[in-house]
């Protein structure tokens, strides 16, 4: 199975991202291990039913969403914070289930909400770190520093993603997770290319990267 890679070129002079990260790729955009995904057409139908008030499908929707949301959050936030953010994401997604637009695929919609939650949490963590002026621990061979750098980079990527339209965000998320999209074929490729272009533009605008 070919995994989609969304690559951004490195820059010689990034103003905000640490120098050590110039050769890194976005953690968010790195390839992920192959995983079994739920039947998304089922999820679309079930979430549509839930948005119309069919309570019988609630548990099934919860079960179908939990694994992808948890994996996304752990991937973005790490083991420690990922589970907590996954839980708050599930609450947020199911709270907004009534607003689900059933013309759009359900999983990218849910993952976009979870991504937003992760972004918010990352910002909060970053702000807390700035106020407490936490220094990375050098005794662990630089692992903590690397983790912090990854977090900074991830935060930057999420910031750039946050400036895109909801459709662009969902297209990129659907591409990354290889989930069903509302469109396919040439339309999907064009939409993906445009979304990627806008992501690059946003990143360049925010951080001066090419």
């Amino acid at each position, binding site marked *: 199975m070919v995994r989609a890679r969304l690559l951004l070129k490195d820059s010689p002079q990034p103003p905000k991202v640490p120098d050590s990260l110039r050769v890194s790729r976005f953690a968010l955009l790195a390839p992920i291990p192959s995983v079994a995904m739920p039947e998304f057409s089922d999820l679309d139908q079930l979430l549509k039913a839930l948005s119309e008030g069919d309570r019988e499908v609630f548990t099934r929707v919860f079960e179908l969403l*939990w694994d992808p949301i948890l994996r996304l959050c752990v991937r973005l936030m790490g083991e420690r914070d990922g589970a907590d953010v996954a839980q708050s994401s599930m*609450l947020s997604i199911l709270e907004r*289930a009534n*607003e689900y637009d059933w013309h759009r695929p359900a999983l990218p919609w849910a993952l976009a909400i979870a991504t937003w939650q992760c972004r918010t949490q990352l910002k909060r963590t970053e702000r807390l770190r700035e106020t407490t002026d936490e220094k990375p621990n050098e005794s662990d061979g630089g692992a903590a520093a690397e983790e912090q750098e990854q977090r900074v980079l991830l935060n930057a990527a999420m910031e750039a993603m946050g400036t895109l339209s909801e459709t662009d965000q969902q297209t990129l998320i659907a591409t990354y997770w290889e989930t069903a999209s509302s469109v396919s074929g040439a339309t999907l490729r064009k939409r993906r290319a445009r979304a990627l272009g806008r992501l690059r533009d946003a990143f360049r605008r925010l951080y001066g990267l090419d």
Partner: protein
Amino acid sequence: MDSIDLARLSREARSRYERARLGLSVAGAAPVLFVVAAAAVLGKRPSSVAFFGGLLFVTGVVLLWRGRDLRLALWPGVLTGLIPLAFALIANFGHGCSGDHCSSLCVPACTAGGVTAGVVVSVIATRLKLGWRFWLSASAVSMLTGAMGCACVGYSGVLALVGGFAVGLTPQVARRVFASR
């Protein structure tokens, strides 16, 4: 991650879902209050309008909150209920006299409005192939809307509305019952 209590998380998510749904339902049913306000201004009995209007609003919120067929019943019910309501409000401005005896036109207006509303509700339900839940809830909403005006001569007006509505529903109900046999 082993410590995540999914059952508790699911319960909390369900509770959030219900609360959000209730909030949306209150917002969704709020336009009904404009109809209630108009009926209170134009009608003769504000207390009856407040009683039936309050019931109408609560019924609307419950229908939208429960969802499925029930949520579809609110606006067809309100719109068809406007027929007897308008008839009754117009009838308030006149009366009929024969010889020495004069009487309000409210009761005949409510009967005629009820029949019309009943026919319209049953035709909508039949055309859209909706179930009994829709029939019952749309009928209740329609009658509550009409009752705000039909209380013009006390509860006899409301009874006339209900009777007329039942007559209006009868042809399609009979057709449906016989078709299912």
